[in-house]
Structure formats: C-alpha cells, structure tokens
C-alpha cells in the first residue's frame, strides 16, 4: 500500500476556476484507478491560488492483469493485415489459434497473466489527464505550447515515496515543491505526503479549502460577536474569498461614519462586489461603518488595515460625490435627456419607450384599480436614472437609484417604491413586488420589452436569450400569479402593439401577437412544471383557458394537482372517466350528434333523475361563482357527484333497446362531462 500525490504549482489561479479543477482531477484519477482496477483507500483534493493538489492513500503498488483469451481478426483476413496484427500485439504466428464463433471463424491468442506497476500507469496517464482538464478560460505564456488557467510552473508527483517521472509539454515532473510563491526560489524536497503537509503547514498555509472556509467563518463570527455586530455571510463571497487566500487573516476595519448617508445598496456593492469585504449590521439591522477584510498576510505593521480603510473611503468619496450631485437633479426636467439614449435599434430611444409605457401603464392601472395619474408619473421618470452618474458607475443599481432619487425629490412613496422595484422579479427566485403600483410598473416595462423584441423578430432561440426575454415573461407570470391578480394579457399585448404603431414602429401585428402569446404560455407551462404540477393537469387547464386567464390556469391546476393522488382526486377522475368512456365509444360507434340537453320526460327511473338533479345543481354552482371562486370548494362539489354517477352506472344500462332513451341517457352523460369541464378539461387527465 502506497500513497500518491500530485501538486500543480502555478501563478495565481482565479478563485472561481479552482473548484472545477479540483473536482476534475479527483474524479479523473479515481476513474483511472477504477478502470485499471487499482485499489485505493482514500482520495482528497485541495487548492490554494498557487497550488492544486490531489492525494490518494492506500494505493496498490501493482495490479495483476488476469490471463485472458483475446479475439483477433477474422481468418479470412489478408496476410498483410494479419502480420500487422501480430506486430502490434508483439505476437508470433505460433501464439495464435483459430476458433469458431457465431459470427464466423477468428484468430485468438492467450494474453498471459501480467503484473503492472501502478507507477507506470501513473507515468503514462498523468499527462493525458492534465491535457484534458477543462479550464473555463485558459491562456498561453512565453514561448510555450501549454495552455493552462495561469502559468503552470512546476509539477510535483510522488508515488510510493518516489518521483513519478514524466514530461508534460516544457515541464518535467519533480520531487520538490516551492516554498515561496512570490519568487519561486526556495524549494523543498518531499518524500511523503506528511513531508509535504508539514512544509505547507510551516508556511502557515491552510491548504484544505473546507478548513480554510470554516476558519474564516469562525473568525468572522468571533469578531462580530465581540464587537456587537451582525454579519449575514454571503456564501458566494465566502467561497470566493476562501479561494483568494492561503493564510487568511481576518481584520475588522472601519470607514468614516459620514458615508453612511449614502444609499445602503451602494455601500454594500462597494464593499462586497468591488472590495470583497463583508459588511456588518447593528442590532437593528442597519448597516454600520465597520467591515471585515479577509487578508492574505499578517498585518504586523498595521499597513493592511490602514490601506483597506483608505481604499474603501476613496471609493465611497467617489460615490458620495455622485450621490450628492445626482439626488437633486430634477427627474422631471431630465426626461428629455432620454431622447439621446438609444433603447434598441428598431425600437427607438428610451424617450419613445417612456411614452409607450405611460399609455400602457395607464391602461393597466384601470385593470388594477390604481391611480392612473400616479402610474403615468412613475412611467415618465422610471428610466431617468439611466442618465445619472451613479448608474453609470453602478449599472446593477438601475431602478434602485431611480427610487432613491424620487424619494429625495418628494415623489409619493408608492411611486418611488414602484421605480425602485420595477426591474423585479429578475429571476425565478427573486423577490416579487407586492404593491400594486410596483406590480403595474414592472408589468408595463416587461410587456413593452417583450412586444418590441418580438415585433422586430429577435425572439430567443433554444440556447440563446441575449435580451433576457424568457426572464421578462416569467416575470409577468410571477407578478400575476404570486399577487393573485387577473389581467387580460391578450388585450395588453394588443394595446402595446397599437402604441408601437402610433410610435411609427411597424410590426406584423398579428404574427407578433400570436408568437408572443404562445411564448408566454410556454413559459407558464415551464413555471407550473417548476411548481411540480403534473403535465396532464397543466395541459387540461391550458386547454380550457387562454392567455387572458393566467392566474386561473395556475390556481385551478395547483388545486387539482394537490388532490390528484388522494381519494377525492381519484373520485373525480373516476366519475368523469366512467362517463366519458361510454360516451366516446357510443358516439363514435353510432355516429351520434349530441345536443347536451337531456329530456327529463324520457327518464325511466330515479337514478337518471338523481343524476340530472346533481348536474343541475353543479351547473347552478358554476353559473353563480364569480371571480372569487374557491377552487377547493369547486372540487369538493365535483367530488360529491361520485355516488350519484356510480349508482347510475351500477343500476342502469345505458344502451337501452329504445333508441330515444339510449340517446337521452348519453345526453345526460354528455351534460355531466361538460359540467365538469367548467373546471378544467378532465378528458386530458391520464387515468391511473
């Protein structure tokens, strides 16, 4: 049993490439050992920016390839080809023999038992595995042909305390590692993994990324507790920071309190995204002027703390300068600046978009029963922040800054909030606006975008969606469904098309309308599937209701999906299917045309009468429900028909000798099914 380890020493590999490389190497070496039947007990992989390591313990020194009968070419093959076969397998003619198989007669030979050194397998395979490593982004350097994430400097490869000798491009494997990542001058020979770990430890390097991450987390906890601060650890940031350092040193720093008057989002982006710091909160959840830096060196002279504090202050001074300048620049007076900002080729400027949005927003406000005037104001100024310096500096804060400006300038609260939130939701998981002005503005913006891009025929392809139109459509669906509102999307698309036309943008309106409707319905299907709704339920619901009923489609599906495998759901399906099966076969067989009206005069017994009564009752229920339909109650009602319809079938033969009676019974069943279809079209449901 031996150990194998490999260290790839490089210039600093980007944080986000490290985990992929670690996993690639580990799985590929594991795969190699499995394929060659080399047994090992333990496998590990670690990385710091300059070192990528894999380690296997308890590895077999050699493997024994069992004696095996191997098939060669057909006996009909030309002499020349046979010679080639013999040569490439290092065989003589006497080593081979003929044997019949069900595919004809072939040459065979016996491959004898053979010992193979694991060392040799490694020598052979390491360069091949390294060649296949998939860096998301890689480079060349100097005069070399090798392509790597950043310059690869040295390869340490040890098996069974010996060097695994091989060449890889311009490099040869070694039995030493570099102790100084800066100058690459001090080397250290290692024989065992323990040797290696000890030398790394002496350098204060925590090579294990998980240990490093835990260490950072604990230190942050310790420092924040001690100083009565709260840190909501952002896990992406923690992951990145962990892969940016090898000897983490956690420092609590602060900036001048006066910068706390800058909007919180700017402070957070500056610290988190630009400087990779953790911001802190006080007991009330307010952001503080203290922040946490994960440095990669001991701060013996205090330079590191000082330097970081100065950097963040310089950045915040910049932001403060813009904030003070921008917040007082009158939003209304700046609207005309949008004329010089191109929205998209073929869709005009942001000014054009703003004009369309005002009208579309007004139209939507009628549906949402909110003030038309206010949403028009929100539409007019919501894009003005795009011309501000702050959004130039922090593009990810578009909308949010506009909201702050509006608030500063005394616009009503729901107006400024709607501006702040109008890009939301921007993903399947993101926060959803709840206030109707925000919902209205967000819908307006997204609809105008979708109609425009579909109008100029820049629809998403199967793999590409450069204008994030899928996201916009999902946004519309989420706004409707998660706020439980009814909105006639068909009419809105239609109106938006009219507005483009008034704006002198000429689209093929009919095609655009249809394509966009289908696109939104496809997204609705996707959204419902994500909610684990069965596809047959989705189809049944979509079959019954069109794009003007997105909320209804979703809610009816959801309610039915919830009970579909329970007794109540099974009852409903069984009732419906029992009626439908007879109906379908009889209608087809006899080529009947049904009118959906049964004649009570033709009823022969109480079962028919009871069923008729039940159907009337259900019909009445459906006629009387308004928009406040409670889908659970509807489903309960449908279920209540089960004993009636089952009694009917258990006691009556539909196929009466009398044609009129038979047809009347079928009419009754047809009525029954059609009444059920008021909910969703149950014929689309697959029976269990």
């Amino acid at each position, binding site marked *: 049993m031996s150990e194998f380890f490999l260290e790839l020493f490089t210039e600093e590999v980007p944080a986000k490439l490290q985990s992929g490389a670690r996993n690639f190497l580990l799985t590929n070496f594991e795969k190699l050992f499995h394929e060659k039947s080399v047994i090992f007990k333990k496998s590990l992989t670690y990385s710091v920016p300059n070192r990528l390591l894999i380690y296997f313990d308890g590895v077999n020194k050699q493997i024994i390839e069992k004696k095996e009968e191997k098939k060669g070419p057909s006996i009909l093959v030309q002499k020349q080809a046979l010679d080639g076969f013999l040569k490439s397998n290092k065989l003589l003619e006497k080593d081979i023999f003929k044997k019949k198989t069900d595919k004809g007669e072939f040459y065979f030979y016996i491959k004898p038992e053979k010992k193979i050194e694991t060392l040799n397998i490694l020598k052979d395979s390491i360069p091949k595995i390294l060649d296949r490593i998939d860096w998301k982004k890689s480079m060349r*350097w100097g005069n070399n042909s090798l392509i790597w994430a950043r310059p690869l400097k040295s390869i340490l490869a040890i098996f069974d305390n010996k060097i695994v000798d091989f060449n890889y491009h311009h490099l040869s494997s070694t039995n030493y590692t570099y102790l100084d990542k800066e100058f690459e001058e001090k080397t250290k020979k290692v024989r065992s993994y323990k040797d290696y770990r000890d030398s790394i430890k002496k350098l204060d390097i925590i090579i294990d990324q998980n240990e490093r991450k835990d260490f950072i987390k604990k230190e942050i906890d310790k420092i924040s507790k001690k100083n009565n601060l709260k840190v909501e650890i952002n896990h992406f940031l923690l992951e990145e920071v962990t892969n940016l350092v090898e000897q983490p040193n956690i420092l609590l720093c602060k900036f001048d309190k006066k910068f706390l008057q800058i909007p919180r989002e700017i402070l957070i982006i500056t610290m988190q995204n630009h400087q990779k710091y953790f911001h802190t909160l006080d007991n009330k959840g307010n952001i503080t002027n203290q922040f946490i830096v994960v440095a990669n060196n001991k701060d013996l002279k205090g330079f590191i703390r000082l330097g970081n504090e100065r950097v963040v202050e*310089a950045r915040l001074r910049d932001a403060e300068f813009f904030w003070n300048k921008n917040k007082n620049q009158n939003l209304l007076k700046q609207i005309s600046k949008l004329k010089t900002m191109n929205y998209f080729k073929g869709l005009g400027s942001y000014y054009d978009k703003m004009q369309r949005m005002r009208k579309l927003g007004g139209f939507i406000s009628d549906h949402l029963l909110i003030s038309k005037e206010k949403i028009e104001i929100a539409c007019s100024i919501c894009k003005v922040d795009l011309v501000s310096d702050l959004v130039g500096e922090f593009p990810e804060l578009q909308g949010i800054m506009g909201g702050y400006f509006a608030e500063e300038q005394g616009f009503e609260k729901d107006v400024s909030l709607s501006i702040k939130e109008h890009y939301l939701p921007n993903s399947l998981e993101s926060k959803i606006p709840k206030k109707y002005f925000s919902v209205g503005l967000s819908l307006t913006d997204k609809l105008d975008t979708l109609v425009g891009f579909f109008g100029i025929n820049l629809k998403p392809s199967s793999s590409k969606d450069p204008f994030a139109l899928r996201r916009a459509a999902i946004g519309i669906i989420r706004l409707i469904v998660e706020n439980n509102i009814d909105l006639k999307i068909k009419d809105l698309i239609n109106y938006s098309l009219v507005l483009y036309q008034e704006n002198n943008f000429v689209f093929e309106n009919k095609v655009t309308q249809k394509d966009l409707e289908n696109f939104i319905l496809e997204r609705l299907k996707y959204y419902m599937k994500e909610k684990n709704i069965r596809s047959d339920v989705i189809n049944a619901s979509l079959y019954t209701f069109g794009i003007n009923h997105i909320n209804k489609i979703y809610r009816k599906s959801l309610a039915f999906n919830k009970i579909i495998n329970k007794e109540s759901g099974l009852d409903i399906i069984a009732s419906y299917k029992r009626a439908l099966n007879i109906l379908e076969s009889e209608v087809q067989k006899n080529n009947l045309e049904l009118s959906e009206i049964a004649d009570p005069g033709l009823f022969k017994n109480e079962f028919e009468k009871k069923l008729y009564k039940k159907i009337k009752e259900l019909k009445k229920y459906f006629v009387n429900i308004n928009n406040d339909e409670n889908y659970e109650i509807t489903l309960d009602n449908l279920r209540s028909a089960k004993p009636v319809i089952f009694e009917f079938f258990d006691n009556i033969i539909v196929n009466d000798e009398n044609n009129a009676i038979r047809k009347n019974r079928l009419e009754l069943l047809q009525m029954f099914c059609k009444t059920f279809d008021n909910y969703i079209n149950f014929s689309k449901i697959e029976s269990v």
Partner: protein
Amino acid sequence: MVSKKKKTKPKYQNFQDTILNLQKYWSKQGCVILQPYDMEVGAGTFHPATTLRSLGPKHWRAAYVQPSRRPTDGRYGDNPNRLQHYYQFQVIIKPSPKNIKKLYLNSLNTIGINYKDHDIRFVEDDWESPTLGAAGLGWEVWCDGMEITQFTYFQQMAGFECKPVSVELTYGIERICMFTQQKKNVYDLDWNSQGVKYREVFHQAEKEFSSYNFELANTDNLFKIFEMTEQEANNLISKNVSLPAYDQCLKASHIFNILDARGVISVAQRAEYIGRIRDITKGVAEIWIKNQK
C-alpha cells in the same frame, strides 16, 4: 534581491522619483527605456512599443511612462481620485519571462512597497480592448485592497494571435504615490520634495480639459475629423506604411473618446465606431507584421 533591512513604514517617495526608480529598475532588467508616445492615447498599451511590438516573433523589452487620457473621467479638478489625464508606467516583455512575478515584486520594493509588509493579491482580471481587437489574461494586483497594477499576458492583439506571448505590466503612478505618500487627495501628491505638488502641475489642466471634453469640443468638426482620419489611415494602409497609419488609429480613437464624453454617441453608434477603429488597427497590424520580416 529582497531588501534585508526591516522597514517600519512604507517608504515615502515623491512622484518623480517613483517614475525615475521604475525606469532605473527596469533598465537594469534589460528594458529599452522609451519616452512617452507623442500623441494623445487612452492608455500605455496604445504606444506602438506595446501594440505593434507585441505582434510577430521578435523578442522585445521596453519600459516607459505614458500620459494617458480618459476624457469621460474628467471631474473639473473636483474629485480627489479621478483625472482625465494621468500617468501610467508601462513594461512590455516578449516573450514573458518565467520569473516575471519576482521581477514585478522586486520592482515594488524600489518604489517603497515591501511586499512582505502588505497584502499583495493577484485578483483575476481578464483584459479586453474592443478598439484594439486585443485580449489578455492576468490579474489586477491589489496592495492592501487597492489596485496598483494591471498584469496581463497578451493572447491577442489587433485580431492576431500573440506568439510568443508578451507580458504587460501597467502601474498606476498616481495611485501608487497616493499609497506610499499616504495622501487622500491626488492633488496633494508631492511631486519633487521641493514644494511642488500635483495640484500646481495639473489642476488647471484638469479643469480646462473637463470643460473642453464635456462642453466645448466642437462635435460637428470632430465627427468630420474622425472621417478624415479614418480615410487617411486606409490610404496609408494601402500604401504599406504601418507606423504613420497607426498614428491615424490613435487619433481616431482619441476623437471617439471625446465624442463619447460629449455624450453625442448613442449605444448603437458606439459599437459601430469601435468597430471602425478596430478595422483600421487590424489593417495596420497586418502590414506591420509583413514589413517587420
């Protein structure tokens, strides 16, 4: 080699000594010390000693300071960190040497930054210049959280693959001095240890050029000059003279930057202008490579 002496604070260095020390240091490393290119450029990279010399097989080592102009970054002299004109110190070595990191870290020592006392970090930064049709991989080097250098291995220049690969180091002189002199405002930088501050040298220029860039530049004329410059470049390319043609690319690029600062170029136009500059630059590079042989 690493300084053996323990230092107790970052070594104070005035602005001009910082440049002189970098020149001395890189001169010792075998670099040709050049003077700034005598035209308006957006960055040290635009100097033909970098752009053109990074193309083709010939070895090359050079270092120079380059005044760089970014019209949109002007703040009328009011902002303590932003300038429309500042100094970059540029090192270009082809092929990139194996010990470049060591050479770089030692260079910091000569300008008052001992890497052992600081948190020097190499943070991924992939560089791309759409106007030059250039791309490279490397890092921004952070010193205690502040970016002080761009460290780039060129992969592509003017649309051509770089072979061998050059390494480019770009030091931000103002930032480094603000760090070593512990100044919060760029205009307070000590220029020569004899009483002259950065303010005296450049403040008026920042004010006046900000007015020019944002308000006064005659955009109608600049649009015309852009067209003329582009024509001239194409004419010179057809006559097979690469360096004069390249000057026209630099001119076009600077005019574009001023037009951009004046806010008269829309998003769609932007891409078009950048594409036009890239096309002439590519034409120049093609004949430069040919003429070099």
